[in-house]
């Protein structure tokens, strides 16, 4: 049954997949970055359709904002023209084949796996935050350490102090 939400889903899905294809097929890294934004916005749309408004917001802020900006900054810091000509491996048909095979297996598994479902239901924001900060406090703490390590690591990697010639 075609419902408006289904049409929206297809739209968001097309955006997601189209953007994704743009990322992995493109020859130009700037276009790839823009395609990535498109795709990630599509994912945010999908989140909305699953009543995950908070996550959709997070998705737009973190991905659309932070992550893509990091990538673009990185490109700016390097000489952009070097990235104009991107290429594939010689064995890209093999990669395409394995990706297709992977999708085939997954699709078949989805088709043959009966899952008991119920109507779409949203997860309340309070429940989410309570779960995040109470039930999953340990992983949450650890994730903050992961971020810290990534930060220190990034600083170590890029900082110029003590640079040898």
């Amino acid at each position, binding site marked *: 049954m075609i419902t408006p939400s289904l049409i929206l889903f297809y739209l968001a899905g097309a955006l997601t997949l189209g953007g994704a294809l743009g990322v992995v097929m493109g020859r130009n890294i700037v276009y790839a970055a823009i395609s990535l934004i498109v795709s990630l916005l599509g994912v945010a749309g999908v989140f909305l359709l699953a009543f995950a408004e908070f996550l959709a917001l997070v998705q737009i802020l973190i991905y659309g904002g932070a992550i893509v900006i990091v990538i673009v900054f990185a490109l700016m810091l390097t000489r952009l023209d070097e990235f104009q000509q991107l290429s594939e491996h010689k064995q890209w048909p093999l990669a395409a084949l394995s990706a297709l095979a992977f999708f085939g*297996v*997954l699709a*078949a*598994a*989805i088709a*043959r*796996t*009966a*899952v008991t479902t119920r109507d779409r239901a949203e997860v309340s924001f309070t429940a989410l935050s309570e779960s995040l900060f109470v*039930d*999953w*406090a*340990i*992983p949450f703490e*650890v*994730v903050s*350490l*992961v971020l*810290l*390590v*990534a930060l*220190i*690591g990034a*600083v*170590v*990697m890029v900082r110029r102090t*003590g*640079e*040898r010639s």
Partner: protein
Amino acid sequence: MNNFTLLLPEFLLAGLAFLVLTADFITNDERKRYLPWLAVAGLGGILAFSLIFLWGDIGSLYGGIFRIDGYALFFKAVLIVIGIFVVLSSIDYVKKNLDHPGEYYGILIFTVLGMVLLASSAELLTAYISLELLSFGLYVLVGFDRYNPKSNEASVKYMLLGAFSSALMLFGISQIYGLLGTTRFDEMARVLASLPELSPGLIVGLVLLIAGLAFKVAAVPFHMWAPDAYEGAPTPVTAYLAVGSKAAAFALMLRLFSEALIPSVGDWQIILAILAALTMTVGNLGALVQTNVKRLLAYSSIGHVGYLLLGIAALAFVRDDNTISLATTHLAANGVMLHIVAYAITNIAAFLVISVVFKNPGNEDITGLAGLGRRSPFLAMVLAASVLSLAGLPIFVGFVSKFYLFNAAATQGLLWLVGLAIFTSVISLYYYLQILRQMYVEPAEDDSPIKVSKLTLGVLGLLFAGMVFLGVYPAPLMDAIQYASDAIAVVGSSGAELAHVLD
């Protein structure tokens, strides 16, 4: 109610890392040489504290996502000791070749924390996050030789493939979450035991989870990052990569497979067995053609991952009629843990010798070992002992652990795989003997004796003593291991059967 005092060692580890980072920040260059000693003292203190404080103290936090038991305690001790040895073997190397010692040791301690958390995780998300803490630290450490393009490249490659494997694993976790409704190990086991058979979606999830883990431990065919990463990384980090990350990943795998997935052992045993067969074969054959010592040891460690996977595959005896016997699960679990310890001691020693012998990082050709037997008899003896232990020859610990592990697997009905394992183990002897030959038979180009610092001598002496002592008298270690495996094996050694008929 959550008893947070159980988490004290973890908090202390995080605190120690912060302390080292802060100390680095506020001290001048002269004082920075005390940083590693601060790290060692801290780790030693935390080790002692954990052993005294947590002994026999069993509990779980947040309804079982995080388990403090004998198994976690055992690995906590093993992993912290590994951390101490890696710090000790880094001191000279870092002073000579790397800058930013504070960040180096700080990140190292964070990865130790990640490993320790991994051994306690009894839930997939917690395990995943801990694994990422470990992996992120390792990505940075591998690239820590910032001005060496090989190190950069190793880091990039390791990071990209690590992230790729994380994605695979996460997809597997999402499937398991969606189809089992839980990611807690004990609940997973319960749900799995109630299923008449595994749905295709679930099988895909399990396979992806296994594939992701296989990437992390460099099992064939997910091993291609390992030789490059091992070669490019600073040598002490290579040791850490070979030892610490694998010990921790197998600590997780052992718990995962024996606590959560054991009811469906009939489905994954063959997957793991094939993975193990490929890994031990490719690893040992690949090592035959290597001329770079670090690459050689990388392939050898891939071979050893094959043996450990064999042990995991042998956690249960699947009979011809698809009934499962868990009567000798302990034997296999003990074998895996013993081999992890043996492999850890041996590899740290081998890499430490290599980091001392090879002055210029980036050029570790095997001929550089020529004449080591005359240049430094002690270093040569330790390296000889290490490779013989890796080859599984007595009187070194590698012999006992391989024998125990293979024996366990044979008892579980995997004799064909044991035959292959023993056979590849002989192949490995060939390239290990090449190392011996370089050291003792070939003459050196530069015959000057090698100066070895007292610290390195002490550390190597300790490791050598450990290799021989555990090779001759492993009983005390086995008692500890038995204590650990009592905590994870679902069915005790009473011989009870899990009545689960598949299909």
